[in-house]
């Protein structure tokens, strides 16, 4: 046992076997599949001069793609927080026929392949589509515009908000809202001052997760976007285009910018979740 204690002073002793082998396999597999390949991205970029890197990631076409990607993703995340909150509220607090089906449907964007979602949404929102045809006479084009991109991203992001807020709302102690009402608060006051603050960390986490997913999303967007440079071309598509032209350094440079953005989002999400956990423990 002396060896065990000496070797593993970075962990608490346990009678359960298999620590060394399971952690070893985990780290090896993680390294081979995720960490080494990802670091290859940074190694490749290190071979590019900074001037060239900067020129690639700030070219006019790339800058407008950032604007479209961030703009549509932010808009979609806000829409998801608004409707996601209503959907979650209805799922947790009310009983109505078809509730189980609606609850299951919320997960569909997780399970449905993005390419399938992409062509289905395009079929709906194209000028002759089931929904698009009603907007066409009004002069509103949905498919092949940033509006179409936003709808695809709302589709992709909704489950993140609902599934993050749902457990928090389910666990919420109703005594506070009962107390608020019995002390004379109106329904809106109770919602705004008692319930909403409790839900804020979860809503922000859901917002950040939906935003992070939307920024990198490719399959569901490219069909509905129309992909016109400067108008409806998203960042992931620019990476693909550069790869198809064998411009590997260009593709890698933009990928590094995106990857750093997603690491920042991941960091923010982790902070928000820690905050959310603390709030729930209190």
């Amino acid at each position: 046992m002396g060896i065990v204690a000496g070797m593993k002073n970075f962990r608490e002793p346990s009678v359960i076997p298999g620590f060394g082998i399971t952690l070893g396999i985990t780290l090896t597999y993680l390294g081979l599949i995720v960490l080494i390949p990802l670091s290859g991205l940074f190694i490749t970029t290190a071979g590019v001069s900074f001037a060239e890197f900067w020129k690639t990631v700030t070219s006019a076409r790339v800058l407008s793609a950032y604007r479209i990607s961030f703009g549509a993703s932010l808009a979609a995340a806000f829409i998801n927080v608004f409707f996601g909150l209503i959907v979650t509220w209805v799922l947790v607090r009310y009983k109505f026929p078809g509730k189980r089906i609606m609850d299951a449907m919320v997960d569909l964007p997780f399970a449905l392949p993005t390419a399938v979602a992409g062509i289905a949404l395009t079929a709906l929102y194209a000028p002759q589509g089931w929904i698009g045809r009603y907007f066409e006479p009004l002069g509103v084009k949905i498919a092949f515009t940033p509006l179409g991109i936003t709808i695809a991203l709302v589709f992709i992001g909704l489950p993140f908000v609902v599934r993050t807020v749902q457990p928090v709302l389910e666990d919420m102690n109703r005594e506070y809202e009962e107390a608020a009402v019995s002390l004379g608060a109106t329904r809106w006051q109770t919602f705004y001052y008692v319930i909403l603050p409790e839900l804020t960390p979860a809503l922000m986490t859901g917002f950040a997760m939906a935003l992070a997913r939307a920024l990198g999303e490719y399959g569901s967007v490219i069909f509905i976007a129309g992909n016109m440079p400067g108008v409806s071309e998203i960042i992931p598509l620019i990476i693909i285009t550069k790869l198809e032209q064998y411009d590997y350094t260009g593709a890698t440079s933009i990928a590094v910018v995106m990857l750093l953005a997603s690491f920042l989002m991941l960091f923010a999400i982790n902070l928000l979740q820690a905050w959310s956990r603390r709030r729930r423990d209190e």
Partner: protein
Amino acid sequence: MNNISTKRKSPIAGPPWFRFVLIGTSVVFITALIGLPVAAVFAEAFRKGFSAYADSLQAEYAVAAIRLTLIVAAVAVPLNLVFGVIASWAITKFEFYGKQLLITLIDLPFSVSPVISGLIYVLLFGANSIFGEWLHDNDVQIVFAVPGLIIATIFVTFPFVARELIPLMQEQGTEEEEAAILLGASGWQLFFRVTLPNIKWGLLYGVLLCNARAMGEFGAVSVVSGHIKGETNTIPLHVEILYNEYNFVAAFAVASILTLLALITLLLKTLLESRFSSPTNRH
């Protein structure tokens, strides 16, 4: 309106019209956003009748795409299943330094754009890449071939099983395992007789999600595929090609297979959840 009522009388559930407006908004929103696209897939697939639908699925390249997707999933899912169980064991049965970082790293593929997930393997194994020359000399092709598709799929589905198991096993703690060891169980007996029965539903759910994503992944495999008809096109890539060729009926027909897979996955998930919340699992 009788069957619209609150679970427990909540003071702010509001009058019936208020509940009706909120429920109505949700139903309309979910139906329009999520229900209609699913209906559209089947409507477009059957637009020219059942025989056109059946023909689309029996076309040579469609069959090849289905076969390739099954092969990719058959390799990627079991590997990630084994990894997921091993990683969850290491993380939940022991206390060690850096655990939170390890969990974050396992979740990392979720935060990476699918396009980048494919790109990293092109940089690693493609022509002019880090290992490219060696692979070329030894006549091994990874990128634009089946191995590349498999590796990219493993990357994107990497966290699914572990992510389902870690919270579940954390909640279950280690007392049962410790008792079994003290009673003389071996490591394997411990896993198959004590741990596995406790986690089987969560494990099954994780595998379902992992499989759905493995068969449906688009962005990452699109980058490493090379789009060689009949050779490196999985079902989603074949859908894209058919769609871009304006062969809409065939595109939606092939897409309907994946839609069915998604619907079955959700159905099983809903059934599993009612298992999860059986009295034995809820405290």
